[in-house]
Each structure stands twice: as C-alpha cells, then as structure tokens.
C-alpha cells in the first residue's frame, strides 16, 4: 500500500509535470538509437534504457521522469502492439485530471 501516483499525461501536459514520474501512452513515430519519439496529443521525446523493445508504428506505454527540457527519462517502456485506441487513452488522461480525487495523489512538492 503506497500512496504515490504516476499520473497518466500527454505531451500537452508535460510542462506541469517536470521532475515527476508520469505515464504516457502514445504511438511510436521514430526510433533513433536510444531515443524514441511518441505521438500523444503532441510529440514526446523519450530517452530509453537498454531493455526497451519498442516498434515504430505500434503503441507504447512509457513510465518515466519528465526532465526540465521536457524529454522523458524512461524507467520502463512496454510495447502495446498495434491495436491501441489512442482516443480512449486521451480520455483517460482527461478524466485523470478532471477527477484527481480518485486518480492522483497530490505531489510531495505541492505541484498540481
């Protein structure tokens, strides 16, 4: 039992979450070495670690920390295949922020 949240966000919300761990679901646009570009209501640059096996064109979920330059330091990335409804993912991001009382614990730094 641990009351720490990893909020689900999209590219549009990156700025409000610098320094925090977040979950982003998006479509992999490009892989360049250890860097992946995801489309999630805007573009996200994710700096991967070695264990990541993403595929261009597939959906991916990345969990990581938002750097000050709004790139993501990825802690965990999973390939979601090609059957991901990104509209539902976006709805989840929306309701996460609309109903924080059931989805997000206030951050320790007092953000949000």
């Amino acid at each position, binding site marked *: *039992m*641990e*009351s*720490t*949240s*990893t*909020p*689900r966000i999209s590219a549009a919300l990156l700025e409000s979450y610098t320094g925090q761990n977040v*979950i982003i*679901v998006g479509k992999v646009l490009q892989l360049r070495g250890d860097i992946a570009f995801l489309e999630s209501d805007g573009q996200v640059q994710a700096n991967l670690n070695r264990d990541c096996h993403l595929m261009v064109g597939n*959906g991916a*979920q990345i969990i990581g920390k938002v750097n000050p330059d709004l790139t993501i330091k990825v802690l*965990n990335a*999973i390939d*979601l*295949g090609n*059957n*991901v*409804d990104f509209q*539902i*993912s976006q*709805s*989840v991001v929306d*309701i*996460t922020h609309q*109903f924080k009382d*059931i*989805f*997000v*614990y206030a951050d320790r730094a007092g953000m949000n």
Partner: protein
Amino acid sequence: MSTAYGGYSQTTYGAAGGNDGGGFFGGSQSGSQAAKPVNDESLRPVTVKQIIDAEQAFGSDGPFRIDGVDVTQVTFVGMVRQINPQTTNITYRLDDGTGIMEVKQWLDPDKADGESRAAFTEEQYVRVWGRLKSFGNKRHVGAHVIKPVTDFNEVNYHLLEAAYVHLFFTKGGMDTGGGGGNENFVSGGGDDSMFVENNDAAFLKAASVKAKKMFQYLNQSPDSNEGVNIHVIARDTGMSVQDATAAAEELLGHGKVYTTLDDETFAILQGF
C-alpha cells in the same frame, strides 16, 4: 417544525427494524433478484487510490466505504511491480498509476506445487478480482482470480469504468440524476406549475444521491397519491431501508414528500 420531524424519524426507525422481515419476504416471494437491495457484496471497479482512501468504520474490523457506499468485492487493473512467493500465498505489488496495492493470492495446499510459482511476470498488466482486507494497519486485496490483461485497451477501459461508477455514486446515474433529470422536470413542468418544478430541480441539484433516487422513484410511481411504503421504496430503488429512511427524512425536511397512511408511507407533495 424540526422537532416534529425528529419525532417522525424515530418512529420510522423503530418500526423499520420491526418490519424488516416483512419487507424481505415480499421481495423473496416475487423471486426477483434485481429488486433486492444492492448488497455490499456487489463487485465494484475501483482505482488503487480509491482503495487506499476508502474509509473504514469501527477501526480495522468494519466494512470499507467508498463514496459513502459499502464495498467488499472489487476489481482493478494494475501493473505487477513485485512478486513475492511465500509458503501459503503469493503477494503481488500492483501499480495502476494511482497508487500501489498488495494483492495476496492464497495457495491451495492440496494442489500440486506447480501452482506455487507465480503465473505472471513483472511489468505485466493484470486484472484482479478480490476482496478488500485489512490486517493490522495495512490493506490488501485477497484475490479470487488474477488474469493477465491481453488487450491494453482494457487498462484504459477499467479506469474509465471506475470513474463512471464513482460519478454514479457521487452525482447519480446518467438516467436518474444530474442534468438529464433536471431537464425532465423543467420540461415536464408545463405552464402553471413551472415555478414549483423549477424549485424541485434546484432542490435535486443540492440533494443527496439517496434523496434524489427516492424523489425520482416517487415521482414516477403511478400510485403516488396513496403513498409508497418505505420498504417498497427501498426494494425498488435498490437502497437499504436505513438509506431510504435517511432519504425520506431529507425529503420531509425540504417539504418534498409527506407521510400518508402511516409514518413509513410517503407520497410526493404535489405543487398546487
């Protein structure tokens, strides 16, 4: 005024206890499962944060409540963070992005030891069906079933469903409460009763979910002139008799219903 209502509520409570059996028999004779009050064994989709935040009455023995509703059986989707096989159970730490919760799957000692190995791997999404438990000061979910999530959309689906159920209990369902309900009342008001109907709409906005439910039930019931017994209301709206009684008190206090045949039979106070 208020003292008179206080008197009502006491008699209602007393009589309700005495008649409880009668109400139950009525329900069982009709043999309909749906008409039974929603009991606290119903399965509720939740987020981990809701489990952690759930209130618990009477220290660590009482029932859990989420959004003011008793909850025992829950289902949620989370990512396996840690697997901890023990002699009698496997403990998983599941993270759904809203919090982390321990889930214990008890092992059947009669079965072969192949089962004692965890069937899941870390960083895999699973769905859990289980019962909320608390041990000491720690909460966990005693799993009945854990299944792997094979379609990622189920993760998102679950979060939306949990939000829907949360809103259902806090703001009322799509058909019965909220904006839709108010619209009905305003448009159904006709010309001369407009004022009263608007009043009702304003009241319903501020009313509790239970009161809303009961008001709308009474408003729709055909024989509302003679009134409806509190047990019938409770049965048909799926509330417990206590909840219905509380709703009745609230409605009485606002002058929206009145008692008819006896202290536990209510009818809508029509605006003339």
